[in-house]
């Protein structure tokens, strides 16, 4: 029996450069940067003192959640919650503050991932209280903010979801992995819809370990908007960021039955791991794993590699960028001059870690549906190893008639995820 086709029928996004689909779409077109100098990072002696933190959320969250709910929501939960409510409404369902859905929706689930989780709650409440011998003073609010599944559990409760509600975690592949998992889940007939994506909080406790690894951008603290430089010869590391991006993944049949707006079709998704062999490690990809993942996604999509018009890369602005491009060239088995167009959303918003795949998938779908490709900024000085594909790099926003887009994410643990998306003609 043929498996059902799967489409995207709603989206929600909270990002460093904009929140909400309309503003985020405009921010992409304008190549608006969300990277700012972060005084707290300077105060704490970080080498990288720039980062991406969504703005206006303290006020906005009160429009979405009651004071009671907000008592137990850290930043990763708030971002996921706002994005999920926006996605839910965008998909045609109702949610009003004060009168949330009364009934359980048994046909919808959620897989919303996070890379690090509620470490801000751990750092600010759990560790200080426990070390002071004040366990009792922690109250009831910490477990639901520090359990790994907090970000999906709060969304499930907010919207009354009755399908599987879970959190995945695969480092920087998390958001993409969530959407692939949701795609597989609805294709197997377990639910009509899944709210899927990733979230990551804004916290110096999350970012500190990466700074200590010396993988964050250095030398751009006085030029925040130039700090995130994927594919650039002068890239010095990634810029830490935060936010959430989620998508309503739904069977085509369900979407058509209820007359839902359709953004794009998910043709296929692939996940794998390089096994941390043959050049792969906990922190570096095995090229063979990356190539296999992309090829697997293409093979199960029914398209040919040359059909791909745009790659929204992982492209973080580390030394791995040239290797990623090399792996794409190998996976597509194309000559460099025939390489598809490529851009990096991280050039505008930095690296959202567990949220990256979700936010970048929202960006990908908007570009596909609205017929544009956003400029990938800060790589005028293209890395010399990328000269052969130079004409594929989109520096300035342009109109596009791309019909097939490939989105990939790669993460610590040598894990890979790739989705093939197709333009939907309404």
């Amino acid at each position, binding site marked *: 029996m043929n498996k059902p086709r799967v489409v995207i029928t709603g989206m929600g996004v909270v990002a460093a450069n904009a929140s909400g689909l309309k503003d985020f779409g405009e921010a992409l077109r304008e190549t608006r940067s969300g990277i700012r100098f972060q005084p707290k990072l300077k105060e704490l002696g970080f080498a990288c003192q720039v980062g991406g933190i969504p703005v206006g959320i303290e006020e906005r969250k009160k429009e979405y959640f*009651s*004071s*009671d709910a907000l*008592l137990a929501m850290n930043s990763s939960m708030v971002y996921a919650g706002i994005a999920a409510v926006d996605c839910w409404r965008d998909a045609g369902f109702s949610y009003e503050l004060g009168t949330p859905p009364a009934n359980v929706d048994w046909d919808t689930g959620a897989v919303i991932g996070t890379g690090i989780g509620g470490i801000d709650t751990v750092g600010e409440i759990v560790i200080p209280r426990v070390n002071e011998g004040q366990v*009792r*003073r922690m*109250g*009831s*609010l910490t477990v639901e903010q520090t359990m790994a599944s907090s970000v999906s559990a709060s969304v499930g409760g907010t919207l009354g979801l009755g399908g599987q509600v879970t959190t995945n975690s695969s480092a920087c592949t998390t958001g993409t992995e969530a959407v692939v998992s949701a795609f597989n889940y609805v294709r197997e007939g377990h639910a009509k819809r899944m709210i899927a994506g990733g979230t990551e909080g804004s916290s110096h406790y999350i970012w500190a370990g990466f700074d200590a690894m010396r993988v964050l951008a250095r030398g751009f603290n006085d030029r925040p908007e130039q700090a995130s430089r994927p594919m650039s010869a002068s890239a010095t590391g990634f810029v830490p960021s935060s936010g959430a991006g989620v998508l309503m993944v739904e069977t085509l049949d369900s979407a058509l039955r209820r007359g839902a707006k359709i953004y794009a079709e998910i043709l296929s998704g692939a996940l794998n791991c390089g096994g941390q062999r043959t050049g792969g490690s906990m922190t570096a990809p095995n090229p063979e794993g990356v190539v296999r993942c992309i090829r697997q996604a293409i093979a199960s999509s029914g398209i040919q590699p040359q059909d791909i018009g745009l790659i929204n890369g992982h492209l973080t602005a580390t030394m791995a960028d040239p290797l990623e491009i090399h792996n794409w060239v190998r996976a597509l088995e194309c000559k460099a001059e025939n390489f598809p167009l490529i851009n990096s959303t991280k050039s505008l918003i930095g690296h959202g870690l567990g949220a990256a795949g979700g936010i970048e998938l929202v960006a990908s779908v908007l570009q596909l549906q609205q017929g544009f490709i956003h400029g990938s900024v800060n790589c005028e000085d293209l890395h010399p190893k990328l000269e052969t594909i130079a004409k594929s790099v989109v520096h300035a926003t342009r109109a596009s008639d791309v019909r097939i887009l490939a989105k990939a994410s790669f993460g610590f643990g040598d894990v890979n995820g790739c989705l093939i998306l197709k333009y939907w003609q309404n």
Partner: protein
Amino acid sequence: MTENEVFTRVVKIITPFAKNTAALGTANVSTRILEDLSVNSARLVDIILAFEDEFNIAIDDDAADRVRTLGDATHMIVSKATH
């Protein structure tokens, strides 16, 4: 500190935890914290901590377990604050 003053402060402390905000408007000593104000039962420990901070008292678990209504809370606080 009169019982009325304590009652007013108790209601103010519980307000952010109450899902049924309409019931706050007609709150009296018989109002049940969980059932009538729709407070999440897990949050009772946070409310007890807030009472301790607000009134500078210590509330042991047994005393906390006996609090069902706004009146129970008020009486307990007044009795501890005057000892």
